[in-house]
């Protein structure tokens, strides 16, 4: 032991054993952790190559489905009166072939994508938007609780088909009807989801602190609540898209979906189904596009959900 001490003694200059200058700032310099919620979320999100590929693909499909109708000269509703132009197999002229009346399926697919996307976006927007607002009101008002829970139980437990059919039937088929019938149900699920989140935010200490400071409701919403749930909003909206596209297909099958002359992916699949044995491409190609979109958004939504959970920020 003594030896080591001696050795150390020899090693150091005794001037080192005098008072050092104390730096207040240095002592406070914590370790600012490099953690940033959004940066970590996106890093985790984009860590997977699959997600990058899907996001790129979806961006491409989205872009294409909105640009194609603007720039293409092919009219997706152009009917041929000559039966020789009907039901053509895929070729260079018609990449996806033509349908029963000689309309170009490739063009229809893009128009269909655009319309289905628009519908799905609207539904996502309203579901999540209304759901969030309703959830907030629900979360903030205890008296509403029993009513809302009962409403939730009813709306989620009566088979959704019944509900959709009833509404779609009362109101005639159109984009608006489909939108209303789907949006009028979707919000309650979202509302409950957001209610639970908002409830925990409501009772959190920082929110109570804001109340103690007399912060008005509006600022509480914009400063305390929305920033906390924005990632949930994005995720729920992403997951809404496959759901609404799927519902569109189902309602088409039941016969209360879109007007049949509307070009949507759901309609294309349902129409193609009738001629599946003879012209499988008429169903398969739109189906492939549709599945690609639903699967991609499902994965993107779920991965984003994982990524936005701070527990996964490793």
């Amino acid at each position: 032991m003594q030896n080591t001490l001696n050795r150390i003694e020899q090693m150091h200059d005794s001037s080192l054993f005098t008072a050092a200058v104390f730096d207040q700032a240095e002592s406070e310099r914590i370790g600012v952790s490099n953690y940033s919620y959004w940066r970590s979320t996106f890093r985790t999100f984009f860590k997977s190559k699959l997600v990058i590929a899907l996001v790129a693909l979806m961006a491409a499909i989205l872009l294409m489905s909105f640009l194609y109708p603007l720039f293409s000269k092919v009219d997706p509703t152009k009917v041929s009166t000559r039966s020789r132009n009907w039901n053509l197999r895929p070729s260079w002229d018609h990449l996806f072939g033509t349908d029963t009346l000689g309309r170009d399926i490739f063009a229809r697919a893009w128009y269909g994508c655009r319309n289905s996307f628009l519908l799905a976006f609207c539904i996502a927007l309203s579901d999540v938007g209304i759901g969030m607002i309703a959830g907030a009101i629900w979360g903030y008002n205890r008296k509403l609780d029993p009513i809302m829970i009962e409403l939730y139980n009813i709306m989620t437990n009566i088979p959704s088909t019944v509900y959709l059919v009833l509404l779609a039937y009362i109101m005639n088929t159109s984009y608006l009807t489909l939108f209303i019938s789907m949006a009028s149900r979707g919000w309650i699920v979202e509302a409950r989801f957001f209610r639970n989140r908002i409830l925990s935010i409501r009772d959190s200490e920082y929110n109570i602190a804001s109340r103690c400071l007399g912060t008005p409701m509006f600022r509480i919403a914009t400063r305390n609540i929305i920033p906390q749930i924005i990632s949930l909003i994005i995720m729920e909206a992403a997951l809404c898209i496959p759901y609404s596209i799927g519902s569109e297909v189902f309602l088409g099958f039941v016969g209360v979906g879109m007007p049949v002359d509307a070009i949507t992916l759901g309609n294309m699949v349902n129409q193609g189904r009738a001629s599946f044995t003879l012209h499988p491409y008429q169903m398969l190609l739109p189906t492939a596009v549709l599945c690609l979109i639903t699967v991609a958004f499902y994965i993107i939504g779920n991965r984003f959900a994982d990524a936005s959970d701070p527990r996964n920020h490793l």
Partner: protein
Amino acid sequence: MKEHKGPLLLAAKDIVVKFNLRGQELTAIRGASLDVYEGETVAIVGESGSGKSVFTKTFIGMLDANGKVEGGELLFHGEDMTRYDTENQWLKVRGKKIAMVFQDPMTSLNPVRMIGEQIAEVIIWHFHKSHDEAKKETVELLTKVGIDEPERRYRQYPGEFSGGMRQRVVIAAAIACRPEILICDEPTTALDVTVQAQVLNLIKALQREMGMSVVFITHDLGVVANVADWMAVMYAGKIIEYGEVGEVFHQPEHPYTKALLRSLPQLGVKGHDLYAIQGTPPNLFKEIRGDAFAPRNPDAMKIDFLEEAPAFPVSETHWARTWLLSPQAKAFREALIKKEAETRSVQTPALPFDYEQAEPLLSVRDLSVHFKLGSSRVKAVDHVTFDIYKGETLSLVGESGSGKTTIGRAIMSIYTGNVEGDISFKGRKINRKLNKKERGKLHMEIQMIFQDPMASLNDRAKVDYIISEGLYNYHLFENEQDRLAKVEKMLAEVGLTSDFMTRFPHEFSGGQRQRIGIARSLVMNPDFVVADEPISALDVSIRAQVINLLNRMKKERGLTYLFIAHDLSAVRFISDRIAVIYRGRLVELATCEELFSRPLHPYTKALLSAAPYPDPDVEKNKAVLSYHPERESREGKEWIEAFPFHFLYATREEAEKYVHENI
């Protein structure tokens, strides 16, 4: 001088543990060593993030998935456990040879399985015994850890047990295989003081009976003083001082240990600042050069910043990693000791608050608060009456669930509809429907400081906004510049610089966050502040900072505090009067010194006796009182002034009895 009781059981040598966190490497343990001898208790003391928990987790191979032991040896029965690479090897040690008890008994047990099963399964698993045998042993174990009616309790679920009882069950499960080492990871932190004392006694008794070694992890020096034979002080992933408990307490050598002991409020002098450790603990993402504590040590030497000190022996049973023990630092050290002695001797306690002249600021009359829980109504606060005088600090002390926080929140008008009774501030009733103006005025006059610095700041808002929130609400500034100036000034007052303004709360340490929280409340210039356990979530080294800050603010701004706490140590230092609350009722109210010197109510006595005191000599010989009233009855009880300004809630006979006992 003290010898080890038995042979060396476990030797951890230069353990290095690294975590991969968000793509960055964090060195949680930077070469820590510890020896555990048979039949002894070694306590590891450190603040959160010091690595004490991670360190012990390596003993049973339970590091999180992103952590890895990167260096060192872990010798147990001659085997280096760091080389274990299969789960099966660990299964032979874990639970059987080395067992562990976690901090929170509420979550340590599977809520949907009978507690008996959860103990018996260990026995069945490790000793391949039949169910009946295991059950028999389990019942014995339950008896051993002090659970009545073990046969019946066997079939109950954790939900039917109180926290202390659950911790007993957890301990029973941990000792079911008669392990050689029991690691207790802050086993009493989540418990109330009175229960804590009982659980500590149980652990000590079991250790004695079974001859186990106990590794005790805690941040509470009082607990260390109570249980440990040996103590190791951990800082920034390293053990910086190790020794026999008495020696370390009486003659701490490392500046950190010293500072830690000095900063305890029990040792503070009323009316003066506590000795406070500056700054915040270091960031383990970066490489640390020299003594990790040096940046926070005002009396650091130059060498502390350059090179890490070796373990200098203080005695045979005590060493510390500080250059102060180096012969070359002899002069510096002596000067230091002299300086310390001087500062300590000049402090005389401040005069007690003068209640004869005091005018009440806030009056609470017959306050009751009830909550709906399922279909039943629970009274959290039950007819509570007290006044707070202008300029005083009234502390509200009680165990968790006693209703103390509820009172605070009721005063803040956080509840609606479930509050009965009157709360008046400056003579005006405030628990009624107020108009916007009145409410605004009230918000400016009454503010609250919250318990959890992590939860009480909105982590998606910048510090600038957080502090300005109140200013925005009532537009308390002339222009943007004025606002910034106000925020800057406030930050400076709580000891933070203005460049923190643009940062987010998660970039700060707990203590810094709590100071931001205080700044947020005080920027409104309130007259009255409800401080809801503002220090209980903070690390020991930080607490003094915050206590000093609160005291300074009180002095400078003439504030009045309602200080809510469960911990008597800080309360004594900070408060003028103390109100003890038990199950929603005030049971005793007196000035600070009066209460400590002459506690009347048995619950107060139990509370005082159970509070850990950071001195092994005191702690090891203390008797813990307990208060378990058979039946809470309010019949005949009233609010009695037993001594001047000393109130008591009891029947006349009881009061007489209590007073008699104290004379």
